């Protein structure tokens, strides 16, 4: 009956139906009175939950599917992350599946050209190359891997090939936050959560353009003002952005000056006696030294060390005004004020990114603004599963799943036991981190690489030294669209994307979210997870000993309910089995070793994500944790401790406050290169634009790269919007159209260029200097010459 009715609808009546449905939905989201299932049903249209494909916020979306295609996307009102809201990228996520140039068949380069091949040929070619030199092969992935994709690669590489050369592109965006937390309180990932965004009195953005990079979380803060709440926003940045438009205070600093600013705040707090002595004595030790280990120091020594950071010194080094520094100190000194610090790439992509992360914890610890609703230091994440996959699974050169380290013999033994591997299979030496990995490829020390879910030929720094050498190596690229990296590939594997496969992501606030496959991938595209298992199986057939566990069974052996092995290396079997569920349950025991304790799969199916640690309470219910290390919230905190850093290095429940000095940038403007160059993202495009540029709406809104200039600099150089401008650094040059007085305004003497545009590779110009602790490159500052063409 319904189908008949639907078939006879005119286009106009159907449009009116959709319009009223959309209006009712928006009203429900707005008023908070949306009732599950209350929206009118339309024939053949089914709605399913999923996390958004794009950033690390982890918004929930409802995906509308009809006749095997995604036909609509709306925010999920039941998801506590976004409560029905979406950004421009999120509500176009469905369209990103349907670009005309989706990769739909495997390709192998023959005589310099990529030609169609069968899956059998492609898998065999990869396996034989791996067999030839398994120890000189690397795997490069991303924070867009699902949890199980990352886990499978770790098992394949570290547990199977005995090779630690695995690293993700998260090295380029989150590594400084990871090492910052490890060196501060001994374990990765934040204590706080998005609930703190609703409770803070003051939000401080540290080099963070949230309005464009995390727009839904930004709306969550701005929305509070609309409700009449008083929430102060302080934007500490090197560039006026859309976030600045909503800020009460804009504090512009000289690149790298952030190190001095935070030390300056701490100095003022201690000098004036307006720090939280009791909190510090109860929860902190002091540490000095440039590395991750450091040496103990006393509070008095720390206070003396800070005496360098007088307002006069900070003004000189960082270029801020003393009253601005005092304003920041006053906010932290006010015992009743709830202060939330937020940061992302501005702090992390920094040659002292780890130090900068340490310093932000310093100021929150000194002021006791930690572990209380609205008061915390919170590192935002860039990718949808940078936390869930790269950090929790540990798809890093030095790591193993669940916070384990390859250099630790006991940790290796634990992982070998859980993977049923013979002892000694996992090597002790860490592999190459991202930048070093591609350097080793260029030098020929690594002979091949498999790249999944990322586009390093556009996103790595100082690109010009890389591209030609990569062509000489064996490069496998799994992706959904042609990219700058597939241009260099020997083998291209067409991948399934987002809701074309089963998956799990983990977002910025420790929330693990699950979704089911909703539609089929196009053509011959197949899951990245299957690709890894298929190559492993081919290696097993070719006799590689690492593809067997200690009992002689294939490494990826999973069994059905009757105990029969599932032949999941066969695509037709893989598609019938939820391998994601099987592998996730294999992974969960790893997460218990460092008390991450992820929720069981079936709980995640029912929920809109759960924040770990997730443990059973006295009633037998699985309970998530909003704030880690906080008594009454985190089940691992002992009664009476208030806040307990139970992975603190000294095992006494305390964290470190670090003496980390100001250090000049690795490259500064001079007569020849007189401007600062900063790079970054834009609202409309996801990273290198390979998906969002296939969405016409997003492409039209932001069709190409540009260089932003300060109006005074532009006037001095005779440059107007639209003029062609040549940018030149010590590493390369690029011509771009100018944008003056547009969306953002960089500080005088600096320019900004987005990195999404493949035809304008700004990373040919950027510096590849990196933080020595996190190995994360600094994309935010180098010296550049600017001239009108």
């Amino acid at each position: 009956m319904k189908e008949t009715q639907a078939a006879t609808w005119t286009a106009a009546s159907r449009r009116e139906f959709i319009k009223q449905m959309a209006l009712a939905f928006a009203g429900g989201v707005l008023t908070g009175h949306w009732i599950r299932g209350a929206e009118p049903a339309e024939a053949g249209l089914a709605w399913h939950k999923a996390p958004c494909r794009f950033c690390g916020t982890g918004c929930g979306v409802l995906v509308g599917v009809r006749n095997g295609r995604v036909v609509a996307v709306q925010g999920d009102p039941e998801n506590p992350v976004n409560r029905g809201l979406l950004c421009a990228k999120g509500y176009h996520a469905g369209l990103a599946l349907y670009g005309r140039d989706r990769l739909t068949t495997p390709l192998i380069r023959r005589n310099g050209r990529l030609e169609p091949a069968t899956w059998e040929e492609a898998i065999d070619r990869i396996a034989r190359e791996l067999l030839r030199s398994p120890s000189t092969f690397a795997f490069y992935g991303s924070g867009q891997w699902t949890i199980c994709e990352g886990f499978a690669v770790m098992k394949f590489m570290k547990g199977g090939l005995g090779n630690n050369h695995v690293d993700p592109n998260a090295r380029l965006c989150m590594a400084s936050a990871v090492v910052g937390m490890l060196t501060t309180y001994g374990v990765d990932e934040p204590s706080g959560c998005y609930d703190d965004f609703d409770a803070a009195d003051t939000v401080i953005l540290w080099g963070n353009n949230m309005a464009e990079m995390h727009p839904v979380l930004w709306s969550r803060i701005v929305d509070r003002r609309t409700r009449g709440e008083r929430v102060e926003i302080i934007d500490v940045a090197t560039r006026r952005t859309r976030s600045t438009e909503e800020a009460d205070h804009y504090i512009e600093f000289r690149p790298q000056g952030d190190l001095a600013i935070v030390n300056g705040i701490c100095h003022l707090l201690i000098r004036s006696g307006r720090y939280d002595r009791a909190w510090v004595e109860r929860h902190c030790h002091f540490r000095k030294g440039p590395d991750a280990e450091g040496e103990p120091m006393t509070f008095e020594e720390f206070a003396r060390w800070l005496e360098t950071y007088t307002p006069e010194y900070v003004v000189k080094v960082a270029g801020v005004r003393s009253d601005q520094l005092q304003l920041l100190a006053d906010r932290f000194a006010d015992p009743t004020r709830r202060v939330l610090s937020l940061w992302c790439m501005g702090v992390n992509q920094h040659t002292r990114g780890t130090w900068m992360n340490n310093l932000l914890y310093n100021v929150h610890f000194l002021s006791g603004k930690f572990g209380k609703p609205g008061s915390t230091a919170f590192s935002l994440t860039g990718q949808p599963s940078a936390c869930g996959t790269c950090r929790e699974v540990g798809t890093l050169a030095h790591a193993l799943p669940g916070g384990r380290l390859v250099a630790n013999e006991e940790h290796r033994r634990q992982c070998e036991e859980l993977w049923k591997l013979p002892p000694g299979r996992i090597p002790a030496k860490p592999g190459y981190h991202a930048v070093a990995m591609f350097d080793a490829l260029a030098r020929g020390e690594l002979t091949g690489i498999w790249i999944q879910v990322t586009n390093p030929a556009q996103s790595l720094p100082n690109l010009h030294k890389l591209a030609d050498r990569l062509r000489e190596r064996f490069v496998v690229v799994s992706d959904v669209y042609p990219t700058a990296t597939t241009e260099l590939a020997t083998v291209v594997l067409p991948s399934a994307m987002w809701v074309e496969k089963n998956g799990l992501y983990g977002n910025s606030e420790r929330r693990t979210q699950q979704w089911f496959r909703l539609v089929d991938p196009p053509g011959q595209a197949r899951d990245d997870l299957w690709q890894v298992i298929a190559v492993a199986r081919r290696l097993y057939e070719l006799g590689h000993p690492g593809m067997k566990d200690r009992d002689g069974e294939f490494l990826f052996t999973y069994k059905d309910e009757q105990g029969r092995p599932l032949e999941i290396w066969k695509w037709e079997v893989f598609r019938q089995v939820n391998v994601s569920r099987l592998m996730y349950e294999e992974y969960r025991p790893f997460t218990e070793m460092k008390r991450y304790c992820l929720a069981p799969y079936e709980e995640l199916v029912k929920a809109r994500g759960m924040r770990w640690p997730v443990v059973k309470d006295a009633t037998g219910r699985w309970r998530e944790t909003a704030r880690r290390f906080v008594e009454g919230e985190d089940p691992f905190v002992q009664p009476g401790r208030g806040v307990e850093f139970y992975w603190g290095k000294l095992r006494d429940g305390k964290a470190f406050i670090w003496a980390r000095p100001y250090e000049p940038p690795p490259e500064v403007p001079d007569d020849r290169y007189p401007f600062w160059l900063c790079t970054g993202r834009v609202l409309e495009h996801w990273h290198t634009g390979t998906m969002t540029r296939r969405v016409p709406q997003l492409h039209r809104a932001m069709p190409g790269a540009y260089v932003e200039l300060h109006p005074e600099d532009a006037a001095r150089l005779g440059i107007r919007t639209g003029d062609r401008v040549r940018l030149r650094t010590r590493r390369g040059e690029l011509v771009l159209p100018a944008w003056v007085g547009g969306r953002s305004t960089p500080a005088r003497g600096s320019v900004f260029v987005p990195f999404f545009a493949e035809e304008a590779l700004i990373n040919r110009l950027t510096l590849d200097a990196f933080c020595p602790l996190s190995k994360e490159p600094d994309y935010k500052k180098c010296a550049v010459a600017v001239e009108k063409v």
Partner: protein
Amino acid sequence: MPVTAYILLCRTADQERVRAALAGWEGVEVGAAHVRGLAVVAVTPDEAAADAMRERLAGLPGVREVVPVGHYTEEDWDDPATNGVQR
């Protein structure tokens, strides 16, 4: 013809002004109101017009932010892709 649902974040005091401004806009309908803002849906001839509509909404006096919450594009689904994408 894409259908797009938005929340316009605007103060209660500004809502009447925003409603009045929207009254004459073709394809636009205002739904529920709340202290946070207004629910709005827009039907536009094509995606380019949808882009322009969003910009127009963002430019209305009193509107602090335009938050899209849903997008229905089924009728245009055969023509997304890479028109104009330079590679």
